[in-house]
């Protein structure tokens, strides 16, 4: 049987088909900007195989956003001619080996843009190595089947993709997919590895039947709280559950079994925490700082339990001001999420002429529930101070997610 490369709903592409399609290419784009996932991945693999650096852009961006990033139409249409020589499976395997062995002949670089949750999107250029510090390749991983639950034009998606590619694994594309397709992919596709945001898992859970075939569940991009961790353990009884901390600039930095991360020895001099915020040294950041500063602020606020262990508390942006009181939106979200009849929630801040800001919430309730706005508020009032309670609660069918798969929060 031909080894499957990609499954995207009804589209199934094998590795030999991928190689054939690459061998038929006469040129490859310098900028990958496509809404067809197979084309995105095909060009990505081709760029690696031909050692040709690329820029990758989310297909969701429109012309004016591209303009802001300095991507002109000319750049979008630019391509490189490929040599005439035949591309083969052997050549593909050779490239993979080179990447695994970190052969210095790999000059390939990839440029991507941060999602801009902390302001303007930033341009970040990675080498294969700087992006994939924690990639694991071995025979053991040869039969892994991955669910690609991240946007492949952002760092987390690329990391998952390369982890799968280097082990020649099959990939089920489930980013931005409906729940039915995700469940079907995991169950029928025999997915063994999933890496996704807490928002993704919240959409998926609770599921009546545990996913027994999954061996590894990785959470990243947002705070994983102990409640979701508990649910993940129930839904994936045979999986190791890993919580990761990564940034577009540095790639994955920490991994932990639970909520608490510890700073590995080799990173101790590269990480510092000032006023509870994590800073990353420029040496482990792929971004060239223009202002010459040595440290990068991440906007992530943490809390230390001892000298070496910390947990993520929130993002700097999650803190807003309501009539002079500091409010952490994450704290409210977490209280909503433990309500037995609420399956998902996101809390927003909206400018308000009376108090500066007002808190609003969107909640998804269980199908049989008929809990009211008033009841939810009453429930919250047992756990939160008055000014932290969302004054407008909207009942929605689903929480919109950003292009990086995180719950989309509006700061108007």
């Amino acid at each position, binding site marked *: 049987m031909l080894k499957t490369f990609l499954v995207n709903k009804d589209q199934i592409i094998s590795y030999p088909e991928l190689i054939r399609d690459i061998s038929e290419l006469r040129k490859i784009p310098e900028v990958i900007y496509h809404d067809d996932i197979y084309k995105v991945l095909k060009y990505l693999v081709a760029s690696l195989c031909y050692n040709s650096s690329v820029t990758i852009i989310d297909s969701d961006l429109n012309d004016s956003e591209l303009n802001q990033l300095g991507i002109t139409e000319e750049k979008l249409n630019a391509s490189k001619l490929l040599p005439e020589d035949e591309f083969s499976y052997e050549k593909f395997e050779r490239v993979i080996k080179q990447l695994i062995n970190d052969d210095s002949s790999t000059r390939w670089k990839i440029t991507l843009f941060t999602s801009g949750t902390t302001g303007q999107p930033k341009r970040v250029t990675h080498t294969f190595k700087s992006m994939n510090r924690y990639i694991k390749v071995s025979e053991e991983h040869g039969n892994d089947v991955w669910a690609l639950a991240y946007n492949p034009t952002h760092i987390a998606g690329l990391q998952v993709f390369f982890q799968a590619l280097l082990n020649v694994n099959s990939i089920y594309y489930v980013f931005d997919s409906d729940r039915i397709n995700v469940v079907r992919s995991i169950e029928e596709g025999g997915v063994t590895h999933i890496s996704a945001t807490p928002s993704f898992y919240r959409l998926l859970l609770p599921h009546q039947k545990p996913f027994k075939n999954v061996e590894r569940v990785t959470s990243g991009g947002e705070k994983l709280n102990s409640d979701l961790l508990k649910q993940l353990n129930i839904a994936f009884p045979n999986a190791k559950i890993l919580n990761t901390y990564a940034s577009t600039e540095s790639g994955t930095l920490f991994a932990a079994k639970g909520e608490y991360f510890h700073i590995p020895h080799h990173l101790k001099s590269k990480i510092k925490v000032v006023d509870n915020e994590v800073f990353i040294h420029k040496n482990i950041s792929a971004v060239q700082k223009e202002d010459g500063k040595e440290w990068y602020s991440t906007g992530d606020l943490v809390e230390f339990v001892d000298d070496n262990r910390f947990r993520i508390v929130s993002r700097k942006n999650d803190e807003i001001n309501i*009539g002079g009181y500091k409010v952490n939106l994450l704290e409210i979200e977490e209280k909503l999420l433990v309500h037995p009849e609420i399956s998902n929630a996101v809390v927003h801040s*909206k400018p*308000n*002429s*009376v*108090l500066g800001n*007002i808190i*609003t919430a969107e909640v998804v309730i269980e199908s049989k529930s008929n809990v009211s*706005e*008033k009841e939810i*508020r*009453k429930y919250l009032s047992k756990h939160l101070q*008055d*000014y932290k309670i969302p*004054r*407008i609660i909207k009942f929605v069918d689903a929480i919109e997610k950003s292009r990086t798969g995180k719950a989309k929060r509006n700061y108007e």
Partner: protein
Amino acid sequence: MNARLLKIINTVKKNNDQQSVEKINKEDDLRNDLGFGSLDLAELTVRIESEFGVDIFADGLINTIGEVQEKIRNA
């Protein structure tokens, strides 16, 4: 307009465990007569804005129902 405004006021009151009112008069003071605190007023503004498209507190604080009605009429 008055029926819709009354409904909004009672939504805010009900959500916050306050007694609802049967009618509103234009001299009613939002804080003293209707018992709204600043959080309630903030909520009221949002609800009025989504119903009538006007931010009643946009140019300073107002006190009475009559002033609210005027803002809505002039929107």
